[in-house]
């Protein structure tokens, strides 16, 4: 009767704890406001280790003085690495998730104070910042309102409502955000801290807006060995495209700096705790850019670059550009090894490295329904490119076979052939003619398939059973495309879920990446930086293991 025992024991909690839990808090920060000042993260980490009796030898601090040349607003920070048993956590300096948005600017003057009960005292502490448009549903006009500028950026709200963003102080006074910012009683970091969204752009620049901050926290499944270590400081104004590929001790990832139009591929050495910028590319006027890392072969990183440039100076051909690039990780030199004639499928990773071959699908004809694809094979040793399979898509390796999809007589079918020669084609099964955007991966035993059903507008994920019939494990209403469909360490990973390949148990989770045979999970967190007295965002990366 363990249940009853703890049930009864909980009835005798001390009043002070009940009273505390019955209070209403306007934010997590508000909840913590009665506590002592946050402990310096250095001290906090040391205490964390000391308390938990984890060997401190495995933790290590490293000051780093900047992520990459040209990266903005880098403050001195720390990166702490920890390993404990099966768990491994890697912190990568953050980045707010930002998307450039095409907007029409309707700039207004910086708003004067409209809510001021009493003049706040000097050095009074901000208790909360309340967005009354959300808490009280106050209406506002739809136009971008400039509410502040500093030496580098202009800050905007997406509506005329700065007078409704109210800063509350410890002394009971309150005022609107524009007044507080201009008086120096609040900072932009306070908006981040209290999760008030805003846009910003480089001072005087026209067009491109950045922000708002995107919340992507989802939480990791508790059945995994993973734990947060409180470390790291953020790098503002950059976009980290999360974890991408791993080779040996190094993790490679992309840092986008939209202010400088600078896009860097960086490495993080897990053992040495060193960050290195491997290469930097500049794409002026880039409106949207995607790096899809395919893998590493012979010290070269292969990735697909998708560039969308809609600036007025670009010619039609330059507006969109897609290619596969090869980056020499030793020299940092890169070259285009394949240029797509048309936009490839940007949604699903359909490229695979098999021995010295890089196989990927390329759309040969857009004017057919469904679109006509070929599988192209690039020999990473000789540099030769051939069309390996005509009318075929979604290449994947399974045991000694290449698995792919082909459409014949309107129906989608799954085929296999010899991995290297491409001979001995065999049809494994027919799928519905309604199915498009197939993607395939193998868990070593079973062949997994994801398809979009155009009739019902649903995504189906399943595997081929012993009779090669598609056995659906999950069907869901289409909600975006499955950007990720890979197998690693017992799991099929999709953009919003992971499926246990054996038990077929589904865990709803975002931000899990399958890299090689390992699973990683990224979580964005807001941390307090004792030195700068600011809250900063960081990406905490977990190595997941059972």
């Amino acid at each position, binding site marked *: 009767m363990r249940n009853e025992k703890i049930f009864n024991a909980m009835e005798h909690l001390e009043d002070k704890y*009940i009273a*505390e839990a019955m209070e209403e808090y306007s934010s997590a920060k508000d909840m913590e406001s009665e506590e002592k000042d946050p402990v310096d993260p250095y001290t906090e980490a040391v205490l964390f280790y000391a308390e938990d009796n984890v060997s401190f030898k495995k933790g290590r601090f490293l000051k780093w003085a900047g992520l990459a040349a040209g990266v903005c607003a880098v403050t001195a920070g720390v990166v702490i690495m920890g390993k404990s048993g099966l768990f491994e956590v890697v912190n990568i300096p953050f980045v707010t998730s930002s998307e450039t948005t095409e907007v029409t600017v309707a700039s207004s003057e910086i708003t004067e104070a409209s809510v001021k009960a009493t003049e706040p005292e000097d050095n009074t502490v901000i208790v909360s910042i309340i967005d009354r448009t959300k808490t009280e549903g106050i209406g506002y006009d739809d136009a971008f309102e400039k509410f502040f500028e500093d030496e580098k950026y202009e800050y905007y709200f997406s509506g005329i409502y700065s007078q409704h963003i109210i800063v509350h102080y410890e002394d009971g006074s309150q005022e609107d955000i524009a007044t507080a910012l201009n008086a120096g009683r609040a900072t932009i970091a306070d908006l981040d801290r209290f999760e008030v969204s805003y846009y910003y752009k480089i001072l005087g620049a026209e067009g491109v807006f950045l922000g708002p901050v995107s919340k992507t926290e989802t939480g990791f499944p508790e059945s995994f060995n993973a734990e947060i270590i409180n470390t790291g400081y953020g790098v503002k104004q950059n976009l980290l495209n999360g974890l991408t590929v791993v080779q040996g001790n190094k993790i490679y990832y992309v840092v986008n700096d939209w202010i400088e139009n600078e896009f860097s591929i960086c490495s993080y050495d897990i053992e040495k705790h060193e960050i290195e910028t491997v290469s930097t590319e500049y794409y002026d006027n880039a409106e949207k850019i995607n790096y899809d890392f395919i893998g590493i072969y012979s010290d070269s990183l292969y990735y697909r670059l998708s560039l969308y440039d809609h600036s007025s100076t670009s010619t039609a051909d330059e507006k969109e550009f897609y290619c596969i690039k090869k980056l020499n990780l030793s020299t940092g030199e890169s070259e285009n090894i394949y240029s797509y004639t048309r936009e490839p499928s940007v949604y699903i990773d359909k490229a695979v490295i098999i021995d010295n071959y890089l196989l990927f699908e390329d759309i040969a004809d857009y004017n057919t329904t469904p679109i006509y694809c070929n599988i192209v094979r690039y020999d990473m040793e000789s540099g030769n490119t051939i069309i390996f399979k005509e009318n075929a898509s979604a290449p994947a390796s399974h045991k000694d076979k290449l698995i792919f999809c082909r459409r014949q007589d309107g129906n989608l079918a799954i085929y296999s052939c010899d991995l290297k020669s491409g001979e001995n084609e065999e049809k494994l099964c027919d799928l519905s003619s309604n199915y498009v955007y197939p993607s395939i991966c193998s868990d070593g035993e079973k062949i997994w398939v994801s398809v979009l059903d155009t009739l019902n507008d649903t995504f189906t994920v399943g595997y081929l059973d012993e009779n090669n019939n598609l056995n659906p494990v999950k069907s869901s209403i289409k909600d975006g495309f499955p950007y990720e469909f890979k197998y690693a360490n017992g799991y099929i990973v999709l953009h919003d879920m992971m499926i246990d390949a054996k038990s077929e148990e589904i865990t709803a989770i975002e931000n899990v990446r399958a890299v090689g045979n390992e699973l990683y999970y990224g979580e964005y967190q807001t941390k307090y930086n004792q030195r700068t007295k600011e809250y900063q965002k960081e990406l905490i990366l977990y190595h997941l293991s059972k």
Partner: protein
Amino acid sequence: MEDRNIIDLFFRRDRKAITEMSEKYGKRLMRIASNILGDGRDAEECVNDTYLNTWNSIPPNDPENLLCYSAKIVRNLAINILKKNSAQKRGGSNVEETYDELSECLPDFNMVEDRLDEKELSKLINVFLGGLPKKSRIIFVRKYWRMDSIKTIAADLRISEGNVKNTLFRTRQKLKELLSEEGISI
């Protein structure tokens, strides 16, 4: 109205005390009842009974914190109704599930089971809570005392559900460690 003034109304046997209490804390009390009993008539009756019990118990009681005092009453009443309903097999609630989760923290030793009585366990939990960061403590009490859902806690405290789950997971792990140590040494 301040708590002290409402309690004074109770002492003066002024029925306005119930109105003021209901206005100030009714929603929060209703939430606890709903967490345990689900939305519906039972929860409403439970909150009404709480007002009555408070009326009958103040005086002689003179609580320092009226909210805490009435929250304990509503919780106890709700749990009693739940037990009665369970005996009559009138549907379930998430309470069992919540306590299943928490009971995982108890060490799995028969010896400990026998020796660690509810009073000691309660004392240990209070000591444990005292050593937690305030945020973790609030999340823990909201989940396992107020029976709030993870979604509600996240929304109330303006943090992510993942953050709440992580905090609860780590707190349960720590509690389990503490209870294991204490259980063995008792």
